[in-house]
């Protein structure tokens, strides 16, 4: 038992150490700021600029959150406050299934539905020529993928708020929406932020679905209809050739290290928000 516990507890440290040692080669030769903010990605001649990938990742993630967050919040409030029990009984399996669908299937669905939709309708509507494989497509698919994740946490959070709080607000003459706006959301705010933060971290690391619809072009995107490239997609796309070019594997491990760092950082901060929510 103790041995198993030790193995499991040390896992994150091993992950960090392993990836750090691997990317040490790259960190030794290049300046950290240079790696993160240089725009040139030419592994063949030893130029490793991660800036396009980082920017691509941030665009896709933020856009996905922008689509997903309001939908999740409104739906969580609706399901927990305004409906009868049976709606929740339908929503729970629906969330389970959405959460269970593998990312490859989401990616495939994105190619079948979202990409044509953007290239045929949304692009022309805004007067843009686009292939459909774009930042926006990735954000759409990603937004749907993180819905079950965020919604689950939000529903749990809204359920823990005592019903007396809502009732006293209603008794004082507030309308239901006023109650939601001024009482429930204010009370649940740390929890809501935490839910969005977990979703953000999850979206940042998502690989296959994004890889399949984002277009994979190493370029700084200028609009949401441009194709882009994300950090996880970079790692997944280049595993085959990374041993043939010097320092390439080290660069990819560095990308993984950045992902690990971002994910740990976000989860760490959001845990403090959850703790604050529970304290109230």
């Amino acid at each position, binding site marked *: *038992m103790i041995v*198993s*516990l030790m*193995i*499991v507890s040390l*896992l*994150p440290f091993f*992950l960090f150490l*392993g*990836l750090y040692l*691997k990317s040490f080669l790259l960190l030794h030769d290049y300046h950290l700021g240079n790696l993160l903010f240089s725009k040139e990605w030419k592994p063949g001649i030893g130029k490793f600029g991660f800036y396009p990938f980082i920017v691509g990742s941030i665009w896709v993630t933020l856009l996905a959150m922008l689509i997903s967050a*309001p*939908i*999740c919040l*409104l*739906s969580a*409030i*609706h399901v927990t406050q*305004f*409906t009868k029990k049976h*709606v929740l009984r339908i*929503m729970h*399996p629906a969330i*389970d*299934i*959405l959460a*269970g*669908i*593998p*990312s*490859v*299937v*989401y990616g*495939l*669905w994105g190619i*079948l*539905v979202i990409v044509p939709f953007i290239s045929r309708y949304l692009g022309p509507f805004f007067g843009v020529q686009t292939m459909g494989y774009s930042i926006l497509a990735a954000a759409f698919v990603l937004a749907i993928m993180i*819905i079950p994740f965020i*919604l689950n946490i939000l529903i749990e959070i809204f359920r823990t708020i005592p019903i007396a709080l809502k009732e006293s607000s209603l008794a004082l003459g507030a309308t239901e*929406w*006023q109650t*939601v706006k001024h009482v429930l959301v204010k009370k649940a705010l740390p929890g809501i932020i935490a839910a969005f933060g*977990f979703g953000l*971290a*999850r979206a940042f*690391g*998502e*690989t*296959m679905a994004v890889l399949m619809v984002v277009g994979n072009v190493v370029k700084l995107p200028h609009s949401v209809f441009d194709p882009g490239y994300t950090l*996880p997609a970079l790692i997944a796309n280049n*595993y085959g050739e990374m041993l043939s070019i010097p320092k390439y594997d080290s660069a*990819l491990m560095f*990308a*993984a290290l950045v*992902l690990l760092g971002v*994910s*740990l950082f976000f*989860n*760490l901060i959001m*845990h403090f928000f959850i703790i604050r929510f529970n304290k109230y």
Partner: protein
Amino acid sequence: MKPGRKIEEKIFRGLMIFSTYFILAILAIIIYTIFHKGMKSLTWAMLTQIPKGGYYYGKEGGILNAILGSLYLAIGATCLAFLIGLPVALYMNVFLVRHKKVVAFIRFLLDLVWGIPSIVYGAFGFSMMIFFGLQTSLLAGILTVTMFIIPIMIRSMDEILRTVPTGLMEASYSLGSNKSETAFRIFTRQASSGIITAILLSFGRAIGDAASVLFTAGYTDNLPNSLLEPVATLPLSIFFQLSSPVPAVQDRAYASALVLTVIILVVSLFSRGLGKRYHNTKINF
């Protein structure tokens, strides 16, 4: 009440209802698309044959290699994760029950690990493989996926085990059983429904994840024969067939996606059904 407020109330109530049905509609569209596209090209031969020569250019064959490979990989990883995970979850809830802070810290650590993207595990697994001089193989795949699902397994079992009432533990002690007996005989039985749910949840994760096996399990057209050979997996098979320029092969990708989705749905249904069934063996206080 000012009229503006009434309109605001109406708008937001409408938006809430819209969001809820939007989510349900998206789910329906996804399921419909996968079934509609997949059913067309799903044949018996696809499920029972391995890819023959020129399969990826539209020739004969099937995806049996990927189906079996995925099952082996997911079952292996789930078993391994269970063997490591169950003792940890029990230890946290029986032995460390007096040390609330330690348990809270372990939970926190596990939650952190849960949030790490699977591609990071893939990259880590790959660097370990090179370090130990291993080839891409079923074994490496199983080990990587195990790392990836262990936090999921432990945390889901832990959530159930912590609901086991203290009275039950005290009753067991008073009858003279020691801590291990209490953990493995009493706690596991009381939480059996939750443990099964945890196993099936982890299994679903293990079979659906592509990013962690991309580097470590490799890909092959043959059936897996030993732990040290590379193995094909369903998600990767979908991915590769989809990137083929031949429309017939892309159709097969849709069919493969249908197979994978059906497996996931069945597992999800099973976990609900079994969870309910084993509920009856529970002692109620």
